[in-house]
């Protein structure tokens, strides 16, 4: 069964001066027990999508079901099975960590004893035991973030919305948070996660949807997206600027496509379909021609490449996929 289905979600923010189409016809499906990563640049509409699906905001048009409940007609039922951790930590600064968790547990309709028990569990899980009885005002940003995620988990939701859960966390806390999230997913929680970190989507998401200007511009597994942006590439950094024209010649002979040259960094990039074989050939030919190189590598596209290519901020226009070019035409 699908935990989330959404069709044609549109959200327009109207102000006196202008209108922003924050979501412009978004369709999503998230099968139960899977993780969907929602990726997009600033202002793409990620938060808006999360707020709509978590019942905080009404879409101007479109429909959605969450855990089988209709978004428009059964918001109360939806709130009983979801947990939300928004982009900015929403915990009470003047309550202690444990008071926050207890309060949200009670309001999730847990009994007082159960809320206390859950609060203790979560404080342990998120490494906040020592700070449990301190007011949140004294917490660091990362501690607040963890408490906020704990608050979202208080009622053991089946479906979790996390809006940039690791923004502002140090690398260790981020990896710790990933472990927590993986643990939840292992227990069968369905997760919709937004992020700016492509590495994070790569690590956690089963499927990734890239959104920009309120529209979905690509979707698939991380691998599918990467291969859509282009296959492997050979990157060479020539030692001497003078050698660049000859290096370019060799690369275009040994590789399958256009060679891009960055004169500044003396870096040449060429797509290839022959993988390591092509790399060996290139090294051999460079050696024969007596061209000194500083660095050579076979590079697979990262999600960063996907992101830059799809959202149109890429330097290399030729790596734009069909999907991305339809966007720039739109």
């Amino acid at each position, binding site marked *: 069964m699908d935990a989330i289905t959404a069709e044609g979600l549109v959200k327009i923010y109207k102000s006196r001066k202008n209108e922003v189409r924050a979501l412009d016809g978004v369709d999503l499906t998230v099968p139960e027990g899977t993780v969907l990563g929602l990726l997009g640049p600033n202002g793409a509409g990620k938060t808006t999508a999360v*707020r709509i699906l*978590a*019942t*905080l*905001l*009404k879409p101007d048009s479109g429909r959605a079901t969450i855990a089988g409940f209709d978004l428009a007609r059964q918001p*109360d039922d939806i*709130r*009983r099975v*979801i947990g*939300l951790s*928004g982009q*900015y*930590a*929403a*915990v*009470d*600064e*003047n*309550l202690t960590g444990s*008071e926050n968790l207890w*309060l*949200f547990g*009670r*309001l*999730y*309709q*847990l*009994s007082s004893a*159960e809320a206390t028990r*859950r609060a203790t569990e979560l404080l342990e899980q998120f490494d906040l035991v020592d700070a449990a009885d301190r*007011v949140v005002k004294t917490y660091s940003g990362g501690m607040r973030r963890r408490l906020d995620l704990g*608050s979202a988990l208080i*009622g*053991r939701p*089946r479906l979790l919305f996390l809006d940039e859960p690791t923004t502002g966390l140090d690398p260790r806390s981020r990896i710790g948070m990933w472990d927590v999230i993986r643990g939840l997913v292992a227990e069968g929680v369905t997760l919709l996660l937004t992020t700016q970190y492509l590495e994070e989507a790569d690590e956690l998401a089963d499927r990734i949807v890239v959104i920009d200007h309120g529209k979905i511009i690509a979707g698939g597994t991380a691998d599918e997206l990467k291969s859509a942006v282009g296959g492997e590439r050979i990157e060479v950094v020539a030692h001497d600027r003078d050698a660049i024209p000859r290096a370019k010649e060799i690369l275009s002979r040994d590789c399958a496509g256009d060679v891009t040259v960055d004169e500044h960094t003396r870096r040449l990039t060429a797509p290839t379909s022959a993988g390591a074989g092509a790399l060996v050939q290139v090294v051999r030919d460079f050696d024969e021609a007596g061209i000194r190189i500083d660095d050579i590598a076979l590079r697979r596209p990262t999600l960063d490449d996907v992101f830059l290519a799809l959202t149109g901020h890429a330097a290399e226009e030729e790596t734009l996929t069909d999907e991305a070019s339809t966007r720039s035409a739109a």
Partner: protein
Amino acid sequence: MTARTTSAPSGSVGSAVTDGILVGWRNLKRIPRIPELAIFAILQSIMFVLLFVFVFGGAINVPGDYTSFLMPGIFAQTIVFAAGTTAIGMTDDINKGIVDRFRSLPMSRSAVLTGRTFSDVIYNAGILVVLMLTGFVVGWRVDDIPSLIAGFALLLFFAYGMVWLGVWLGLNVPTVEVGQQVIFTVLFPITFISNVFVPLESLPEWLQPIAEWNPTSTLTAALREMWGNGAPPPTNSLASTEPALVTIVWVLVFIVVFGPLGVRRYRSMSR
């Protein structure tokens, strides 16, 4: 995995009451954590007492003792400002994302507002007790205990009306700073164009009817009458002959107008 108990589902009366109390508990819990807020609310009122008793008091002619005349007005003014405290609390909760957190939980929809109004009336009761004790110290007296209790109850009822005004205001201003500006520019004139500090007869004639019907004035007049605190002889206007009654009507108007407006605004937050 069924951690949820079989307690009342959201939307039921049981959960509306429990959730409202929980939200109110949370609001009250915050007060000692930011003591400056309560302390300055009290100091502001005390400062008014000192200013008017010692600086302007000599120049103001009232029947009887000026301190006795002034104190009921100070209580009334303090309670009018209850709207401000509520508005700021409400705006702050929205901007800090707490209201969104509440809205994402399976709790009673009305609890955020009922909890807020309930905790803020209790908060104002606390402020009033401190002010009344201060009043006793500077020589304010009342006729008897039952009238003191009746007056206190009227003040709290008035606070309830003001708190609903505050809820509506708080839901409509974008930031706490704007809220403070609005309160300053709206509430200050309301408390000054009244009988709080001076007898109505000393105001310009055209202003007198406005000042007389001002809820701050009717509340103050009602308290002076109840407590024997130098109430001036009544004029032939209803606001002056039946100030308590008029005050109660005022409060009902506040609740009937700003209650539904606030609830509607709260519901439309999802637009």
